[in-house]
């Protein structure tokens, strides 16, 4: 495979080489992996990255996991009452061992990668499939894979959007909740969007939510707020009659009135 890949790489067109570079930047995978993954996804960077993240072991042998080790890891954290579940205490211990702050982005990334349904808990199925996808069967590997994923978020808006959308479901109080209370939403937004390219609007947004006494944010508004801040043009030529949720209309009005002041 390796020699074949080199031969292939020699024949790559310039733009394909660029794609490989970007893939590597994004995922920190080896070049041959990038090549293989991209060629299997018709040279579409987005699709390839998604594919790589959802099942890295498929491309990277180093990421294949020893299921017995994963099971042993799960067992060391599981709850005594429910053998198929890690309860909040267990999760705290796990985060501690991973040296991850429970209220950090890294903790949220872990939940996302494990597709956790409930805050502060992991089921056995979530844990096993999640670690399998990540290609980690030890704490060290898990820690490095998570760090890698977190770094990748800064490069890849698609990944961040995915995490952002996941957060709404993860953060809400119950499966039936249609809205996320503002006081819950704000810390999550801080984790997800602060410091990034969209950070500037964030403070105004929070101030607006508080001043307008908005109580909750619907899923639609949650998702579209991400779209809204991810492109500065959205604000520059804002159309109040467009398809944005009305809370964002109100926010733009708020920004305008502040600007006038």
């Amino acid at each position, binding site marked *: 495979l390796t020699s074949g890949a080199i031969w292939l790489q020699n024949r790559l067109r310039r733009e394909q080489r660029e794609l490989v570079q970007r893939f590597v930047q994004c995922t920190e995978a080896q070049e041959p992996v990038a090549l293989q993954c991209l060629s299997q996804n018709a040279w579409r960077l987005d699709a390839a990255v998604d594919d790589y993240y959802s099942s890295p072991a498929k491309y990277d042998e180093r990421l294949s996991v020893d299921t017995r080790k994963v099971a042993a890891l799960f067992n060391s954290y599981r709850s005594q009452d429910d053998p198929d579940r890690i309860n909040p205490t267990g999760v705290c211990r796990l985060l501690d061992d991973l040296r991850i702050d429970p209220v950090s982005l890294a903790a949220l990334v872990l939940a996302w990668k494990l597709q956790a349904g409930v805050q502060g808990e992991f089921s056995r199925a979530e844990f096993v499939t999640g670690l399998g996808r990540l290609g980690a069967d030890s704490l060290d590997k898990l820690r490095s894979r998570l760090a890698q994923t977190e770094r990748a978020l800064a490069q890849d808006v698609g990944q961040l959007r995915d995490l952002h959308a996941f957060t709404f479901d993860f953060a809400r109080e119950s499966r039936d909740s249609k809205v996320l209370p503002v006081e819950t939403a704000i810390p999550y937004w801080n984790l997800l969007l602060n410091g990034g390219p969209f950070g500037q609007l964030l403070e105004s947004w929070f101030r607006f939510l508080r001043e307008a006494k908005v109580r909750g944010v619907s899923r639609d*508004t949650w998702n579209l707020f991400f779209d809204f801040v991810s492109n500065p043009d959205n604000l520059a030529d804002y159309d109040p009659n467009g398809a944005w949720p009305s809370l964002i209309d109100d926010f733009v009005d708020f920004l305008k009135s502040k600007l006038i002041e």
Partner: protein
Amino acid sequence: MSRYPPYGGATSIQSLNEMWAQVKQGIDRIYNMEGISKPQYMKMYTDIYNYCTSVDPARNCVTQPLAKKGKGEARGAKDTGGGARFVGDELYTKLKDDLKARVVDLKRGADGKVGNDLLEYFYTHWSRFRKCSVTVDGIFNYLNRNWVKRECDEGRKNIYFVYQLALNTWKEHWLKPHQAQVIPALMSEIERERRGENILKSAYLKVIIDCYVELGFESDDGGAASAMAASGSPAPASGGSVSRGGSSRSHVGGGGGGSGKGGSSTDRLHFYEEMFERQFLDETEQFYRVESRDFLQQNSVTAYLAKAERRLEEERKRCSDYVHRSTEEKLLARCMEALLAAHLSVFWQEFPALLDADREQDLGRMYRLCSHVQQPHRADAAGGSDSLPVNGLDRLVELFEQYVADRGLEAVKSVSSAVLSSEGQDAKLYVDTILGVHRKYYNLVLQAFSNNRRFVEALDKACMKFINRNELTKLAKNNQKTPELLARYSDALLKKGSKDNVVGDELEDTLTHVMTVFKYIEDKDVFQKFYSRFLSRRLVYNQSVSEDVESSMISKLKENCGFDYTTKLQRMFQDIGASRELNTRFQDFVTKDGAALGLDFEIKVLSSNAWPIHISQGSGVTIPSELERCYTTFDRFYKKTHEGRKLQYSYNYCRGELITNFTKNRYTLQVSTYQIAVLMMYNTETSYTVQDIAATTSIEPQVLQQVLAILVKAKLLTLPSAEAAADAAELAPGTRLALNQDFKNKRLRINLNSQLKCESKQEQEQTSRLVEEDRSYMIQACLVRVMKTRKEMKHQKLVAEVISQLSQFKPSVQQIKKNIDTLIEKEYLQRKSGERDKYEYLA
């Protein structure tokens, strides 16, 4: 006739020269207007006939080869079969030369003449020549019908029927040499007429101009003449006939057969158009350009409009007087260009001033004139603006709309503070003000703008503008004030004993006017809410002036807004009818039961979903024991027939009458349930503290304060003297209220049942809240309806569709968006993944 047998024998053959000498004499007489007798005419005709039918071998030898050259065998067969040769070539040439000599002579007579002299000469000699030529044509009829016709059929060029030969001779040898003088003379005559000077008789001009039309045959065209020949059997001796006028000629065209080359009328007009019409049109336009510019500099626009209209009329008349009718359309177009299109911007400037001054006639004239202007006028003639409208009316319509809207806003502004500040709000003043503006401009559209569709639309738009949002709505800080006030006004009209009451036809008319305003209201749902509130009060309190008028009003609303709009209103009527019946049955029940109530009792049972009556919290009251029997008996009665229905009492709508027994006069007090509850307490004792009253009646303190205030104000209850001076704004719980045993009043019936303040305020808030709720439902229902059929839709399209479907009010985009948000939350809709501005319907 006897001297000249029809088919000439050798004896009567004359040589051509002999015959011609005789005929020429006759022609001379004809052209000299000496007249010829019938026998003379006949002789000439016969001479020519004989000549033409004679067969002169020698002559034939000369002509035959020439005539026969290159011709088909059919001709030969016909010749031999007929036995007669068509002879005439030489005769024709002689005649042609003779005519030419005459015309050249006439031409010389006109040499050196200019202006009127020339035209007069033209008229006199042309009409004479033409008339005489008709006679000559008749004399040469046989030649026409045989030799000329044959030659033409054979396709020989430059051979004409005799009449046409004459005309052609005139054209070539008189008209063409003098053309350069005739046209300027004509033009100056017409211009003099336009300046109002005396001119030659217009009949002269007509003859001259018709000459151009009549001479319009192609040089090789025998059409007109062949028609002449066909109808030109031996003519009366006097020669010529009036029936051969130029205009009738032009109709005949090639219809006479013969040559088959009759030109179409447009071809025939070509000569006229080239020689006369083109210059005439140019000069006309030039004349009016100069005239209109000069006139406008010195006169008002209205004077100019009148003049322009007169000018157009004159030009129209000119066309019927002496210019050919085919010119009319072109002439008027050019006149309008110069007189109107070039000055549109001036008219537009003047238009608002005319509206200001109510110059109906001038406005009508401006409208009529501008509506003639259909084409964009040339940019160089414009006074400024670049985007020139295609139609002269466009700008007027725009200006009119703006003007009416402005007048409406002004009118409303001038009354708005008066309307709002007067007690109970002077809805009549407001509606009358609106109607005044509408009626004025409605009539104007009718009278001055002949009810033109576009002006009607402009009026509608303008009314919509100033009726829905104006100074008054701004002042009231309520964009829905107009429908509210309109509903109030209808209430004032339909309520018994109101100061705005009118009767009979006048009431019907006034309600029709209300509908006029209603039509323009955007928030029809707000009107409905208020209307139903007022209607409910009228019905509950039996205050309607007439049930017929009420239902006629409802059918008017139904007509305008459809069945749904009025279902609740109609339901209310049904309930009232049913209640009437119910009361009768209840009376029977009471009698049968033997349990007399001891008082008159009437009740209305109304379905809660149709009536805008809400049992609000804090409207409760403990019914005095005297009344309680009524309630329990009725409950028993009602439950028997309508099991499962829940009766709720709206005490705040109830009222009763009390009779005072403690006073010298027996007063009848019209009071509310609350007041009954309070006053009945004084049957046991004559003085209570406010606290006592509150405890016994369990009326909410806020309501009780107002109830007591009214009773104190009416001096039925008195405050202890120490507190009498104090402002009765709030009665302390310990305040003692005593029955005024010396109560006196001028009237025996006293109405104490005025509406409570907090109640009316509450109702108002309730109404606007209801409106908002209903709107959300309507928008959501509409969104779901649309999405259900379309499955997927872009945001903008969906919004537009919803706006177009909702007729009772005009939803804002923001409102629609809020409801889209709600539907997404409720999972009726979702955004299509990857397309932020597209929604999908979730079944």
